[in-house]
């Protein structure tokens, strides 16, 4: 694996499985009374968040602390960034402070790629969500969750599993990262959305596209619902929230059309009553809370593999927990 994690497309199948398997081992920790490992002691990880994010930032912070890293939270609000400091100067500042890794969330697509390619920073860059581009650790935690339910076991992939992603694909970094990673792991991805919320050129993506949720449900092993942001309402992407819900939301009767083993996923935050009803959100088939817990394990694995001195491709899997102890 490369030094950075900017795009899920950067991950080979072996890289991805190594992250998932490592995360599986690290997940054992959360059952212990003492949840910390000394792996990243003395290493500095900066959480550089230009965009509000409670869950992703908290998840990374927990992961970093469980690996004993020195954690610095650098949020755009209330810092020099809000006074007009450029991305470059912010990066140079973090570099001068000795950041070993920078976890970056940015409203502009490509900002983490810029940081990774520039000589402004020497540490690893981990993309925690950039604009409408990618959110690779979200895709990893989604794949981790799917594997646990649909094909559990170290070394297993998602070959042949059918994943349906429903909602605002056009503006979704989660959908973009997922289509890369899930395809790499052998899954078949179907996007379901009104045509207005699909990007131009989607016919060339490695996935199926449908405008009709009902017909796809019986052929789905994992149903992932995406949030539709309220600001899309004023831009004529769809007529009303009610119509969107009727055509593209999941409720009890629709959930019952899924195969019995299928799970319902959501990256959060959910808009109950819009894309998902309370009945589905609170049902045992819904993995939203589990995804949050898995997010910590997966992010620990990513930090461990990028910073623990091991590279993902040339490290035997058995090494991972050995050196972590």
């Amino acid at each position: 694996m490369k030094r950075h994690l900017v795009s899920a497309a950067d991950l080979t199948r072996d890289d991805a499985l190594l992250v998932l398997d490592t995360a599986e081992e690290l997940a054992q920790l959360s059952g212990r009374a003492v949840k910390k490992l000394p792996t990243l002691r003395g290493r500095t990880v900066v959480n550089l968040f230009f965009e509000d994010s409670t869950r992703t930032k908290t998840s990374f912070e927990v992961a970093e602390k469980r690996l004993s890293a020195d954690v610095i939270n650098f949020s755009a609000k209330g810092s020099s960034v809000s006074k007009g400091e450029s991305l470059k100067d912010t990066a140079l500042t973090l570099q001068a402070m000795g950041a070993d890794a920078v976890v970056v969330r940015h409203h502009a697509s490509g900002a983490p790629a810029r940081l990774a390619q520039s000589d402004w920073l020497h540490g690893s860059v981990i993309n925690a969500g950039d604009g409408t581009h990618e959110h690779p650790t979200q895709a990893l935690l989604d794949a981790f969750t799917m594997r646990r339910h649909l094909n559990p076991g170290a070394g297993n992939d998602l070959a042949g599993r059918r994943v349906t992603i429903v909602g605002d694909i056009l503006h979704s970094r989660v959908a973009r990262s997922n289509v890369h990673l899930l395809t790499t792991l052998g899954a078949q991805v179907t996007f379901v959305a009104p045509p207005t919320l699909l990007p131009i050129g989607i016919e060339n993506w490695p996935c199926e596209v449908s405008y009709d949720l009902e017909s796809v449900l019986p052929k789905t092993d994992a149903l992932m619902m995406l949030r539709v942001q309220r600001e899309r309402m004023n831009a004529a992407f769809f007529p009303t929230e009610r119509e969107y819900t009727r055509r593209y939301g999941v409720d009890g009767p629709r959930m019952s059309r899924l195969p019995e083993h299928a799970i319902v996923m959501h990256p959060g935050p959910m808009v109950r009553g819009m894309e998902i009803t309370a009945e589905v959100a609170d049902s045992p088939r819904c993995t939203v809370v589990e995804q949050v817990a898995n997010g910590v394990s997966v992010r620990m694995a990513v930090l461990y593999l990028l910073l623990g001195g091991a590279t993902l491709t040339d490290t035997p899997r058995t090494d991972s927990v050995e050196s972590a102890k």
Partner: protein
Amino acid sequence: MTTYLIRNAQILGGAPQDLHLVDGAIAAIGTALDATADIEIDATGLIVLPGLVDLHTHLREPGREDAETVLTGTRAAAKGGFTAVHAMANTFPVADTAGVVEQVWRLGQESGYCDVQPVGAVTVGLEGKKLAELGAMHESAAGVRVFSDDGKCVDDAVMMRRALEYVKAFDGVVAQHAQEPRLTEGAQMNEGQVSGELGLGGWPAVAEEAIIARDVLLAAHVGSRLHICHVSTAGSVEIVRWAKAKGWDVTAEVTPHHLLLTDELVRSYDPVYKVNPPLRTAEDVQALRKALADGTIDAVATDHAPHPAEDKDCEWAVAAMGMVGLETALSVVQQTMVDTGLLNWEGVADRMSHRPARIGRLAGQGRPVSVGEPANLVLFDPAYRGAVNPDSFATRSRNTPYKGLDLPGRVHATFLRGTATVLAGELVEQGGLA
């Protein structure tokens, strides 16, 4: 005045001949001319072209002298083989009054490197609300004939109609920046496969084509002259071709970068590739080359758009749009049009000098290379190969997409009415404000 004897130069790529430049004009052309001059130049292997004319240059003065000034921009123009440039109106303040266009015109006169023909804004402040004083700008010392809100589209159909009609009184032309504003809100790059993958807001081809279609119909309706700036899509080419077939007075330009680069480059998220209109697809590039070759597109225009380093050394979304282009234009045209066999040097002279001068109604520019004509000339070495080095540029800015790229050809000398502005590839200091 210094006299020059240019030995064995290939006029428009023809057989080697000598040129004698005296008192700002071409005094004689012939083989083994029996003449003497202050400076004799061995031009073996060099092509002679009429001085290039750019219809679309951003000189940034007044207002953004940190990016470019009339002086630095005209020095860059001379190094690129240009003897006349049209200075776009989107300065601060906007060139929407006789005062501003005269200031720019005067700065050009003082520079001595290249004629500067100011373009006047169509509407006050480029805001599209109220016609600027087009007549006053025409009657000023600057003698403006080309009007453009470039950077912004004259999107209001009535405003565009009135502008087209009004400038007929003094043989003016409206140069449209064709960009439907609603279809391009938040646009960051060409809308297509790559924008979808990168999650960058799309700038669809239809936003350009819809405006061009409307404007050629408007121009036909009111019987006016229309020029389309930086045509960038295959669909736009088809519309211009159709309008010309109808016999309507429509002309169009293409930039060097749209002849060479595609939106695949945006995958790097490096803002050096951010430009408006955006880089398009390989199919568009091929259609543009073909249209320039067959004359559907009349001219190559640089859209030279200098920006200070900080406006490009940042994330894509906040970066400024534009590329510098004066000093690489002829090399890019050689690579994309001449070396591909699409255009010979005569064709290059037509698309980069004769036709743009005619569209801008510039007397004394874009003239044939013949005895008695003003000595506005370029000597170009097409055999040269070398990597583009921005540090050698005369422009104040460095935002070139060609850094490190091997491009063919190099300007050896440029003459502005018989005065050398460039010799042996180096600028000749002109005194002036330098």
